[in-house]
């Protein structure tokens, strides 16, 4: 029996648990909606405007940076698993690779992409 059968079972149980719990609560709980209860929470006063507000551009910058560096993690993991067998040369190569990645980080740092306030 493959270990991945258990993984599929886990995924299935995860989805099933969420569905059962959220739907079962619907059977037992009361439901008395009215307009004021369903209004947007704003500390007691009516909400002003919509949620289409201007957002800080930083969120997008950090999302882009995350994608870049997260891909680097995927390059480093396979090397880390075989680091002992591959020996010195691969170690130096990974050193060069990480140095380049770090240069990228330093570039972003220098350009101010890593600071929240500007």
């Amino acid at each position: 029996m493959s270990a991945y059968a258990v993984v599929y079972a886990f995924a299935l149980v995860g989805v099933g648990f969420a569905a059962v719990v959220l739907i079962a609560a619907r059977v037992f709980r009361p439901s008395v909606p009215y307009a004021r209860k369903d209004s947007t929470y704003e500390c007691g006063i009516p909400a002003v405007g919509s949620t289409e507000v201007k957002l800080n551009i930083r969120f997008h910058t950090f999302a882009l940076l995350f994608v870049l560096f997260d891909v680097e993690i995927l390059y480093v993991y396979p090397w880390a698993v075989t680091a002992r067998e591959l020996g010195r040369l691969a170690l130096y190569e990974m050193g060069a690779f990480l140095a380049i990645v770090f240069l990228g980080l330093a570039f972003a740092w220098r350009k101010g992409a890593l600071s929240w306030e500007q």
Partner: protein
Amino acid sequence: MTAPKPAPAKAPLPEPVLNRKNGILMADRRWPTDQWAHPWSLPGYRNGALMLAGIILGILGGGALIGELSKWGDKLYALMAAFATAKGISTVAVDAVWVAIKVLIVLHVILVNGLWSIWWERKISAHIQSRVGPTYAGGFHGWAQTICDGIKLFLKEDITPAAADHWVHALAPAIVIAPCIAAFAPVLFGTDLAAARLDVGTLYVFAFAGISVIGVVMAGWASGNKYSLLGGLRAAAQIVSYELPRGFSVVPVIMFAGSLDLSVIADAQSGYWWGVAPRWFVFYPVVGQVAFLIFLIASIAETNRTPFDIPEAESELVGGFHTEYSGMKWSVFFLAEYAYVLLASFLLATFFLGGGGSPLPWAPFTLVPSWIWMLSKAMFMMFVFLWVRWTLPRLRVDQLMDFNWKFLLPWSFANIAVAGLYLAFWLK
């Protein structure tokens, strides 16, 4: 303008109802904080502390019992297979039942952990703040409080705001909890004690734990509330950012162990230096401690707990991404949060604290089963999580991002470089 009315005659206050529990008037009860010098001189405090120790030992014992039973797992499986062949049932059915048993046990661990860790968090926060915590309500030391909370949340009305995107709003908690449960598949509960032994276990756990952030963003986006939106985006930025040092900090561990399989990583830490000091990765000079600290800090940030609870900063954003959630949907978010704390505790114990290995190579320690060690280490790490939460103040959002990108990430790179030197000159 009317003349001010004379104040109505006040009715006499009713006699205060005194709690005569245990024959002690609440009014003249002495609290531990009255006697900082000798808190142990108070029988209530002393007995409470002893009982707390008893409960913790009881939980450990319960875990040990389950672990002990798992020893006979293979025999039980053989018995079931023999029964199936005798009755002419397909072995696929036996396997299905077997997988179901495993999954349900782990699901049980996640749910009981919700009850246990919330109660423990209340107790620890109370003791850190010189309060007594749950004592009177909910039975002995408030053991039933979290159970009552669960029932209450189950029966609470679910309020979906009119401005919300109903489907996305309802789906978000499911998308947070489902990958969280799935991420527990390869988690080690002792030496070779895992529901599924995956050769890519580390990557699998990180990958599944990373999915939950989508649910958080969905919750923030769909609520139709500015606080929720900001909270959700902040949560996304934070979780996503801290995933990088978290991923890079385990690279030295993978290099030393030579595998992504959690069992192999734990086994690589068996043995003792000079016959005394355990070869846990946290004890590898400099690299081990740096990796451990980065992983711990990043794990705390991943679970949005207090020094890093910018996404739900109460003073700025009401409740963050779960402002508009109530009832069962809300509690599912919190179940997932505590499940992630448990997951991080077990990962820390596996990666850095030797998994199920004994800390000392001598008889009374080595006789203790591996699941007790694993559980003790994980519970210790969970205690650190709670301790940090109730000790440190919240970081500001720019400090939070600076700390991650300008401190943790460069140092995790440097850590990999030093680990490479170890591999080249020391460990070979």
